[in-house]
């Protein structure tokens, strides 16, 4: 039965009170452990065609008569268009249309950052469109720029009201603590740099707008476009069958799509608008920089009694302020916690969600602080974490939490530290560090799926979700196959088109498996029920003695075993349709993911060079659907995190706000040569309170603890406290220098 409920919805750590229509989740969870298809290695269903370059990304779409759009961007970090003249651009070779501020959503007169979209041109070729941009005459009125986030906070230039939180009495607890450690931690701006840049193709057919777009949320894009254009939602069709990465940056339509839609309307032709790589490095979103002033107070026995933090998110001109204080509030059982978070509005490009926004940054600060506390108390960092284990989230029970099991799995890795340290030489110091992970990833309703079973005994999952490259097709096929009792190669998945299939979840916030998986399983159960009903009638048996195993309808006594296609041959061209919905999340419970990383590093104390030798990861994300794909997710998250930690930084000119790192040789992402040995394990334990599947998401957790684990390994190796990401050689040498001074004053070295 459908129920209307008022509930809290979480995406990427942002909570909203919403009305939701949900359906009951009537299925019992499967037994613990690997099943026939679920919980085992599965090759990606679409891997061969992806590897062979056969699948069509938005970048590969060319429609008949298609024009190419290009965006004119502000050359100033803060300025207003006093006058704009498009006429020279309009008469340039190949140009068909040009639009300016106000002509399309996102093209604005006031530019709050260098690169803000102002105007757009459509031409026969992309080169012509870009050439025409040079001919747009703009008179700019320059405005004051603020680039320093701390100055913005001082002047109360915020993107939203400061967010304050307190439990217990932080001041008193801190004053009474035996030991207090404080530190300021800084993280830099890093970029998603998906290999496929942000782009779309817009095409009007009658009064319907077809949008082919590289996006993490076809429904969100549809809604946004319909709202901005003032047209009915079913007059917008959004398609994304394959996309070249997103990492959080592709959750919305983007100015390039609104400009494309308008240019397509004016020209009567399809318009592709693709960001160049340099635009991608400027205008496609980022993980914003943070400044974190943190304090921890503890008793001599290691009990943490006070945690406090002042967090500044350098949001940019627009965007939202992620929950950087989240880990501090949630990871440890501490009665007295006070946090305040400021979202500084500065004249830099807007942030966008980036793989566990806020928690990646906040975990770096917190987990370094906790290790510094361990050093000061002279206790084992892993023991300190065990001692302060949280059994509830601020009084709210966890739907499941197996972090202690992660710690147990990691113990053997942690014990390697004595041997690893012993490898140190005069210049190369070796050490081991660890950090815990906490993040959301429980997904939620609504999400729907259909399943069609044809007379050939094959099933097709139909749902308008998207696969951002995480292997969604495969996981959904595994879940359907498991429930139906079909072999995996008899299940296909159709997704990525709002006109084909029911509403489905955003692919962000590690929500794909926990949101979509249960809906797909429910649809499969519905289809299977119908197959069994038909079998009962056809073979004159009771439904309760019938089952489907490996594509055969079987009876409990073993007398009947016949292929499903034999059973359903009577359907001819017709199909059986199963429908499924994602049920509600458990009420009054915190649904979170957990994990731990243990990292081994080597540091050259003369040059500051850092080498990550080995990363061990243990994660608790409920039931694992595809063990092979899950390992790939963990590796990918760790590698991206190593980039954030050691080499990636988006720099801007502190005077003009111009982005200085706009190419992939300036913005340094990890290559295959930078990858350490990676070992990963899972606590493959279904969350008994969460849906018929018991699975949480894994897209984000692996990137959360890696920076702190590396920093803590560096401390273990050298005694130096690094406080800034990325840990450049300069930061490393600074920290080594500071450690030397500290040692002279007689502070204890690392445990």
């Amino acid at each position, binding site marked *: 039965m459908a129920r209307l409920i008022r509930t809290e919805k979480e995406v990427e750590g942002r909570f909203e009170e919403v009305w939701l229509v949900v359906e009951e989740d009537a299925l019992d969870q499967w037994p613990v452990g690997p099943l026939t298809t679920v919980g085992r290695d599965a090759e990606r269903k679409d891997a061969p065609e*992806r*590897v*062979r370059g056969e699948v069509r990304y938005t970048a590969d779409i060319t429609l008949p008569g298609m024009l190419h759009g290009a965006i004119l961007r502000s050359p100033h970090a803060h300025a207003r268009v006093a006058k704009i003249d498009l006429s020279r651009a309009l008469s340039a070779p190949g140009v068909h249309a040009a639009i300016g501020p106000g002509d399309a959503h996102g093209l604005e007169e006031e530019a709050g950052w260098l690169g803000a979209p102002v105007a757009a041109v459509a031409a026969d070729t992309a080169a012509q469109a870009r050439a025409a941009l040079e001919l747009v005459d703009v008179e700019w009125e320059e405005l004051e720029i603020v680039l320093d986030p701390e100055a913005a906070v001082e002047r109360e230039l915020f993107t939203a009201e400061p967010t304050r939180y307190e439990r217990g009495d932080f001041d008193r607890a801190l004053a009474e603590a035996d030991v207090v450690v404080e530190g300021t931690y800084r993280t830099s701006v890093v970029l998603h740099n998906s290999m496929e840049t942000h782009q779309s193709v817009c095409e009007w057919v009658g009064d319907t707008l077809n949008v082919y777009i590289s996006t993490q949320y076809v429904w969100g894009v549809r809604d946004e476009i319909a709202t901005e254009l003032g047209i009915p939602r079913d007059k917008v069709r959004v398609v994304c069958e394959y996309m070249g990465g997103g990492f959080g940056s592709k959750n919305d339509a983007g100015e390039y799509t609104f400009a494309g839609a308008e240019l397509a309307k004016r020209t009567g032709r399809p318009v592709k608008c693709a960001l160049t*790589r340099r635009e991608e490095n400027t205008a496609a979103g980022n993980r914003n920089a943070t400044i974190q002033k943190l304090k921890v107070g503890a008793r001599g026995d290691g009990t943490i009694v006070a945690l406090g933090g002042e967090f500044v998110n350098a949001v940019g001109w627009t965007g939202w302020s992620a929950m950087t204080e989240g880990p501090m509030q949630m990871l440890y059982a501490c009665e007295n916690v006070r946090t305040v978070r400021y979202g500084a509005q500065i004249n830099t490009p807007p942030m966008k969600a980036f793989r566990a926004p806020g928690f990646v940054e906040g975990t770096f600060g917190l987990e370094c602080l906790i290790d510094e506390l361990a050093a000061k108390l002279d206790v084992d960092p892993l023991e300190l974490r065990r001692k302060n284990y949280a059994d509830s989230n601020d009084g709210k029970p966890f739907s499941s939490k197996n972090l202690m099991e992660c710690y147990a799995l990691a113990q053997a890795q942690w014990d390697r530290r004595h041997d690893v340290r012993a490898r140190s030489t005069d210049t190369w110091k070796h050490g081991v560090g660890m950090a815990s992970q906490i993040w959301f990833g429980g997904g939620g309703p609504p999400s729907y799926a259909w399943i069609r079973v044809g007379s050939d005994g094959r099933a097709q999952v139909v749902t308008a979700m998207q696969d951002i490259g995480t292997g969604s097709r495969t996981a959904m096929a595994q879940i359907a196959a498991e429930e139906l009792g079909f072999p995996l190669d008899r299940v296909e998945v159709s997704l990525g088109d709002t006109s084909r299939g029911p509403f489905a979840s955003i692919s962000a916030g590690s929500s794909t498996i926990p949101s979509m998986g249960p809906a797909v399983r429910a649809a499969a159960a519905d289809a299977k029920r119908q197959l069994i009903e038909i079998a009962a009638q056809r073979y004159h048996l009771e439904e309760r003695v019938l089952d489907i195993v490996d594509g055969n309808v079987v009876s409990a006594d073993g007398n009947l075993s016949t292929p499903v296609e034999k059973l359903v041959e009577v359907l001819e061209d017709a199909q059986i349709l199963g429908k499924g919905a994602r049920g509600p999340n458990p009420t009054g419970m915190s649904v979170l993911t957990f994990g731990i990383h243990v990292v081994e590093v080597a540091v050259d104390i003369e040059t500051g060079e850092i080498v990550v030798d080995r990363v061990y990861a243990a994660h608790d994300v409920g039931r694992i659907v595809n063990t092979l794909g899950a390992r*790939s997710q963990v590796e990918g998250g760790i590698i991206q995190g190593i980039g954030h930690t050691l080499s990636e930084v988006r720099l801007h000119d502190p005077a003009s706000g111009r982005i200085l790192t706009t190419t*992939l040789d300036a913005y340094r*992402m*990890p290559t295959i*040569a930078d990858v350490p040995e990676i070992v990963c394990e899972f606590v493959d334990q279904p969350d008994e309170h969460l849906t018929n599947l018991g699975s949480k998401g894994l897209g984000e957790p692996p990137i959360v603890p890696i920076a702190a684990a590396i920093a803590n390994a560096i401390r273990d190796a050298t005694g130096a406290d690094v406080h800034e990401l990325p840990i450049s050689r300069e930061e490393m040498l600074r920290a080594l220098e500071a450690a030397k001074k500290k040692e002279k004053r007689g502070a204890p070295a690392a445990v």
Partner: protein
Amino acid sequence: MASELIVNGHTYEVRAPVGASLAHVLREELGLTGTKIACNEGHCGACTVQIDGVPALSCITLAHAVRGEVTTIEGLRDHPLVDAFVKADAVQCGFCTPGQVVSAAALVAANPEPTSEEIRHHMAGNICRCGTYPRIEEAILHWRG
């Protein structure tokens, strides 16, 4: 300007403006979209093709300057590396992957049993933002199945 281009064993008459990149011609003129463009300035390897068996970045190669025979991912679809990539799960979003396979194919042609170190050296110009590197290494180590 018209010129001849040999791609995957076929000879094409190409009409593209002087200055057009090989990547552009392959994708836009010949419809061979397996070759991806991710940076268009020689920094990522997504557009890797082979010219006479040697890996080349097609986005910074002028189409009219190509003298040798071009091999793209479309010409390598039956290469055992494809299967090796699938088995090793060396593909996530897949946007970098055709370029990875083309690079890897050149490596194993010249050196059928590359060590991990040789793989890391040879493949360092092919960026994968999804981080499939450990899987790529595994796929190339076991490319013959």
